[in-house]
């Protein structure tokens, strides 16, 4: 599908209702986030001050001060959600200049501040591309900016083209590959469940017409339901001709990657998903267990036993945990930590801010106490 086809499809009468609905959704989210009652403007300001440089580069200091398509995508999404046009423009401009260097519409996954080649290789990361496209869709719709929609369109199409593959197990499911290259094995593909963000996939699909993204989201949710039947979400899995297995040399624990799964599912309005319930149960056990230490939050757990392998003092992980617990219970109010960037690295801080957004948008009962 080339650009003209997509554009004509986008503007076609068949997509008008979906487009309008998406605009309404985006506006509703925007209204909720900028409502004085639930204003997260202070956390957003703190996040920006901590991680966004003047030129629009979103810095992840734990990765050698690198920026990557994920950080840029997350940053662009947050700016879009908060209606922060100037920040959006800066992040967009930097990303287009520095990461949009591939031959397709996708972004190179990493940019390093030092050395000769600032983009060491041109592989992409599909979650970064997805969030980036979602941000473009949100801003493009709300502010009626066709150029952004066109760019989102190109990314969505290339994501479908290069990062969605049929499952080798013959189930007919579409799988989201973590990148265009490196994750397709001889008889299997490697999947990172946390790269699925169903809400983003559906909204991007709805606006751009890249309908395989929406199908892939649904298939991914089913895949995660299958995985939840076995245990907690793993960071990485392999889907082969014989089904699901672990990936040699990659973490199959429920850790820094998988921490996003429940958050993204709840944000997508799927709080009753088995993966969320399983994760919430594990967090409860961790909190009630003898090894619980106040101020330390479970971040790596054994997939099947739920045993806590590693804790972190970064409150962002505590925010995800408290939110997950609350979303799967009838409680009103949740002990979600208050946002802070002081001493908290980019990744947990970003998850923290996303938790607050997801709470406001999807589970308003779980207000931080």
């Amino acid at each position, binding site marked *: 599908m*080339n650009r003209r086809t997509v554009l004509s499809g986008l503007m076609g009468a068949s997509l008008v209702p979906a487009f309008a609905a998406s605009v309404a959704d985006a506006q509703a989210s925007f209204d909720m986030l900028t409502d*004085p*009652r*639930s*204003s*997260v403007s*202070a*956390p957003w300001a*703190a996040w920006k001050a901590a991680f966004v440089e003047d030129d629009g580069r979103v810095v*992840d200091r*734990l*990765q050698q001060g690198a920026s*990557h398509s*994920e950080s840029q995508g997350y940053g662009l999404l947050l700016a879009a959600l908060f209606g922060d046009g100037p920040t959006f423009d800066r992040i967009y401009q930097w990303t*287009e200049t520095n990461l*949009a260097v*591939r*031959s*397709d519409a996708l972004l190179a*996954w990493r940019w390093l501040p030092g050395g000769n*080649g600032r983009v*060491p*290789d*041109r*592989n992409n*990361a599909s979650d*970064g591309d997805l969030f980036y496209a979602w941000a473009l869709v949100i801003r493009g719709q709300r502010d009626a900016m066709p150029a952004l929609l066109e760019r989102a369109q190109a990314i969505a199409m290339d994501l479908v083209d290069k990062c969605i593959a049929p499952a080798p197990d013959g189930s007919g499911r579409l799988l989201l590959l*973590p*990148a*265009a*290259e*490196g*994750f397709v094995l001889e008889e299997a593909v490697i999947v990172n469940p946390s790269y699925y963000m169903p809400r983003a996939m559906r909204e991007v699909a709805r606006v751009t017409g890249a309908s395989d993204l929406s199908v892939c989201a649904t298939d991914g949710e089913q895949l995660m339901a299958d995985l939840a039947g076995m245990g907690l979400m793993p960071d990485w899995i392999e889907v082969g001709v014989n089904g699901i297995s672990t990936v040699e040399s990659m973490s199959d624990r429920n*850790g*820094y990657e998988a921490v996003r799964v429940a958050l993204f599912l709840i944000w997508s309005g799927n709080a009753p998903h088995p993966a969320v319930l399983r994760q919430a149960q594990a967090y409860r056990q961790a909190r009630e267990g003898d090894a619980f230490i*106040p*101020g330390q939050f479970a*971040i790596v757990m054994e997939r099947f036993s739920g045993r806590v392998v*590693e804790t972190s*003092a*970064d*409150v962002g992980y505590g925010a995800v945990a*408290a939110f997950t617990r609350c979303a799967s219970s009838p409680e*009103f*109010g949740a*002990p979600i*930590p*208050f*946002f*802070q960037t*002081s*001493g*908290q*690295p980019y*990744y*947990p801080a970003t998850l923290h801010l996303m938790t*607050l957004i997801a709470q406001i948008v999807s589970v308003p009962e779980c*207000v*931080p*106490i």
Partner: protein
Amino acid sequence: MTLSRHISEALWYTVFLIALGAGSMAGPLAAQTQSGEAPQSENSEADAPLIDLGPLLDTLEPETEQTDSASDQPVTIPEYQRAPESGAVTAASAVPDTMLLPLRGEGAGSDRILRLSGERSTTVLTVDVAFPESAEAVVLAYRNSINVLPGRSELLIRVNGTQVPPVTPAAFEGFVNIELPRDLLVEGSNEIEVTAVHAHRIFCGPEATFQIWTEIDLAQSGVRLPRGDVPAGKESFATALAAQMALNGSVPVRIAPDASAETIRQLAVRLSGVTGIAATGVTRESLYDIADPLPPIARITVLDGPAEPARVERGADGAMVLVVVRDPDAGDGLPDLGAELPSPAPLEDIGQIEPGVATSLQDLKFTDTNAYNRYSEQRLPFRLPDDWLMLSSSEAMLRLTYSFAEGLPEGAIMLVKVNETTVRLLPLDVGGGEVLEPLDIGFSANLLKPGPNLLNFVAIVPGDPVDQQCPVTERPLVTILDDSTLRVPPTPHMTFVGLRSALTSMRADQVMVAQTSSEQSLTDEMALALVSALRPLDGRKQDENGRLAVAGVGTFENVPFAGMGLTRRELENVLMEPMPMTQIADETPMFRFIPLRPIAAGARSMFDGFINLAKPGDGALNTWLEGRNGQAVLMMPDPEAPNDLWLVVSADSDPVQVADTVSRARMSPDGPRGRLSILTEEGTWQSWQDAGAPPVLKEPLTFRNFRAVAGNYASWSPLYFSTVLFFFTVLSVVLALIFVVSTRGKRKR
């Protein structure tokens, strides 16, 4: 990438135009645009005349011809280092492992440091503990002055009545912790009594008394608990809340920004039950505000939702959180908080004396009976009825029973003071060692005022000799027996117009904020602090018409100061920072007869004296205000509405401190009086009495009270009274003359 695509498109259009003109030349030209790459064009020579633009467009998409895998660079898979490197500690982990339940005590300053001065001084500190078995430690942080002689000084400490081994004071360079036994703690309220016994290294006498002291840092003293070990519940919340208030003086309340002020008010009223007379700051925070660097010990979070019983939870920052879920459609009310924040009981008032009845000092709540120091003050504040007014000469009587130590040096004396006026000087250097016969000390009753008064016993015992250490004694130097009595003569029910009575009766629900456009947060904060502080006094009825309006300096348009004959500038000058001293032009005429100045001054003095006879008081308000500054002004703009008070605060005032002072003023002999009172930066009140307002009789004038009423008027304004008297005299004479003349026989006319 976008730019390159635009360039490609521009090139394509160029090619397209050329193709239109040159047909078969399109292929080669297109090929030249491919930046050196070898395009796999689908066009054929045969198709060229048809000018099929679609394939050409695809051909000119430059990047589609390039594959990233074909790049020379290696391809890696996205993986991230999410965990901090080994050993890295993030500041986000700064949730303290333990929390301190600080001690509470009367007499500490804003820095929470309590000083025990003199040869012997005692204080009782309290702390509430819900789970004493969880206590890690009980600590008392103290330091002492360099003049304290350790060998003859000690700290005597009792924990819930049990004496612990004495501590020799040796904290000369900073605060040092004394660890007290944990097993003496009990569930609920705990009392720690500290008696500091000091000896001066060199001197003895009243001056030396002030040089020997021990200070206790209440903020660093208390019961230390591990945060995680205390289960969430109403008991632990109460404990944490008391600790939060003692430590910070304020409680964070997380609530939606558009929640009504009434909801916060209701919470502030409830919170006043925890702090006693002290004001509580209620720090309003948004539900999504960023975290405090130092997490609170306790917090209240108010959520909108289906109303449910309040519950206590532990917040992620370790704070004990009272979660209140209220139904926004059900008005501003809160759900039942009786268990977690019970309605505060009235505050215990100072002792009240009934005029005409000899009342024992014990009934007046006098407890400070023994004085051990070479300089000591034993203070007894007590309250007279609001409508008690004695301006004329009449005698009140203190029947004092006291004793003092035998052999006190020459010059030892005790001053008996009433409202800081010495009414008797008693020698302590003759006799002693036994309780003396009751001594009647009469004093002029017009030294007393309606409302709070102060009876003070000041003992001064010189050293003997001055340059040696005082002899060791455990017996008090002076003892005032609490069966001593005080009798105050009754008066007719009369009052002066003044704000003190209205302030004493004021309740939290009568505090309101003047509608303002700026400084709203300050006035809101001020009002909230007042609401938390104005806990009703025991036995005091609320005046239904009372109102205390709060306004800020920048919003004077709401303040009815004109009713007091004031201008905006005059009031602003009081509340604004005083300008630095500048050269003020001498407005005195250049040419003057200097020798006349004393004469003019004398005349002015005579005139002032005459005016004072006619209209006693503080003179014109404008004149009285000149040169005065303060952090707040409390006033009664309209004497016809004596219960309508206004508190105007300066922009840099501390709301909690001001509210605290206002609240305490209700029981203080030095509190505000008159129609306007300035709260100075030092926390004292300067009051202006309206000269034009005579005392008001609150009962019918009868033969029985006529003399006393006339006496009060005569004392208030002798000239005014004489004029009236003179008028009646003349009238009487005229009437008498008319009578005499009219009743004479015609013959004698």
